């Protein structure tokens, strides 16, 4: 009798093997931090410096995420639902920072905020260079193109005919956006919020260029890793890295939980894979 592969064929086995290689690699990365960092974690939480960096990171990342979303949602809407001249060129300009190194972005910010414009802002009481406001601006600038792209994709996935039907039922453009587009894109938007926040928390390059790395002043979690590693305090570095990792894992679980919670009821939910 010929041997048959009934459940798996070669292609499926290959994809599963590759998946396991990826899992092993990723787990090794995580374990490298966790195993080295956990012994220092307790002490780190009693350290005023680590507590300061956690507070500063959470504060700046949250404000930067809020600004990103306030700018990204209307921009993504305009890019997907309106007609205006040079739209493609505008989209390219908006997404250009995606392909730029963060150090270069940080340098651009430094040039802008060290100019007369930056000095005028400083005189008005809004200091950016070497200040926590600069951290927020750096995190916003780095993450904004990502947020716009993700939300644009989320809006593109919403069937425009549903908005058309909503309009034919009497809804204005604003009402269509609030009652149809936004709720149907909510999974994408929630994921973008969490992803933007996590990325802001981990931002380093642009922040370093704009605000430097000053202990207890512009020391975010990533800056803390850098400063402690530079001074040979590996334990404190690992502890900060573990804190970032824990926050990232929590974000990931939250994203998945929201995705599951918002899944639509479907007659197909009980159908097996074919």
């Amino acid at each position, binding site marked *: 009798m010929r041997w048959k592969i009934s459940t798996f064929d070669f292609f499926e086995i290959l994809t599963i093997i590759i998946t396991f290689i990826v899992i092993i690699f990723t787990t090794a990365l995580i374990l490298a931090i966790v195993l080295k960092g956990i012994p220092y974690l307790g002490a780190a939480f009693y350290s005023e410096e680590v507590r300061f960096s956690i507070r500063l990171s959470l504060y700046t990342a949250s404000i930067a995420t809020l600004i990103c979303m306030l700018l990204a949602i209307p921009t993504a809407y305009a890019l997907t639902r309106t007609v205006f001249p040079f739209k493609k060129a505008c989209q390219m300009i908006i997404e250009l920072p995606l392909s730029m190194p963060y150090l270069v972005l940080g340098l651009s910010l430094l040039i802008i905020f060290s100019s007369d414009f930056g000095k005028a802002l400083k005189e008005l009481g809004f200091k950016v260079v070497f200040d926590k406001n600069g951290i927020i601006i750096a995190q916003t600038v780095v993450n904004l193109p990502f947020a716009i792209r993700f939300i644009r994709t989320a809006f593109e996935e919403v069937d425009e005919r549903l908005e058309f039907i909503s309009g034919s*039922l009497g809804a204005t453009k604003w009402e269509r956006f609030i009652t149809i587009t936004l709720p149907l894109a909510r999974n994408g938007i929630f994921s973008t919020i969490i992803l933007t926040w996590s990325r802001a928390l981990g931002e380093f390059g642009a922040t370093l260029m704009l605000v430097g790395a000053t202990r207890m002043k512009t020391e975010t979690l990533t800056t803390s890793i850098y400063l402690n590693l530079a001074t040979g305090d590996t334990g404190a570095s690992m502890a900060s890295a573990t804190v970032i990792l824990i926050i990232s894992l929590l974000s990931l679980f939250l994203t998945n939980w929201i995705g599951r919670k918002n899944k639509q009821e479907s007659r197909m939910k009980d159908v097996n894979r074919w």
Partner: protein
Amino acid sequence: MVNAMVEINNYSVQLGKFKLNQINLNIGEKEIFAVLGRTGSGKTVLLESVAGFYRKFSGKVMIQGIPVIDVPLEKRNIGFVYQDFGLFPHMTVFDNITYGLKIRKMDKGVQKERVDKMAEILSIGHILKQYPGTLSGGERQRTALARALILNPQLLLMDEPFSSLDPATKENMYEQINKIHDIFGCTILFVTHDFNEAQRMADRIGIMVNGELKAVRKSTDLFEWCQDEEINQFLGRNYEGSVHE
């Protein structure tokens, strides 16, 4: 000819390689008009054009004498039922049906009253709390109809509304649409590729071939022989007096 609800004059629209070409058509008030054609002949594009879906076109589409694009979408008073029904997946059947009433900030009591009436006409009282994803094709279709009709639209546009239904449900729906037409007195324009359906439902029928409206006939005269070979071929006639079933 009674007063025209829909007037289409020299209307053309280009969508990629497909072109809806030089359409001229008048549809009277309270008339039921069917657009018949093969898949890809431009039936849905014509329907969407009447609703004012497209931005770039030439010619004119007017509803009650006013160019459709001059009226904001929310004020056109058009009911639209898509082939896949276009129900809002994040809302229950009740919320789908009352969507237009809520937008108009209508009193909740009036909303319920109207939904109850519609649910009775379309036999959907038992599914009001369900989400569209859990409904059968027939239930979705009746929900989409209820949502469109609850606002008493002057014009109801339907895109192959019965194509996913079984024969018995179809028969039932033909009767319900006629009943709805009698009650609400709206003009109905629907597209189909089913000859029987077009004849059963419509007062007049337009025949679409490759983006052109080739002929408009009374439904009783649908199979009349003509000189146009494309129409004869579409209707299954190869010479005068013979119809291929």
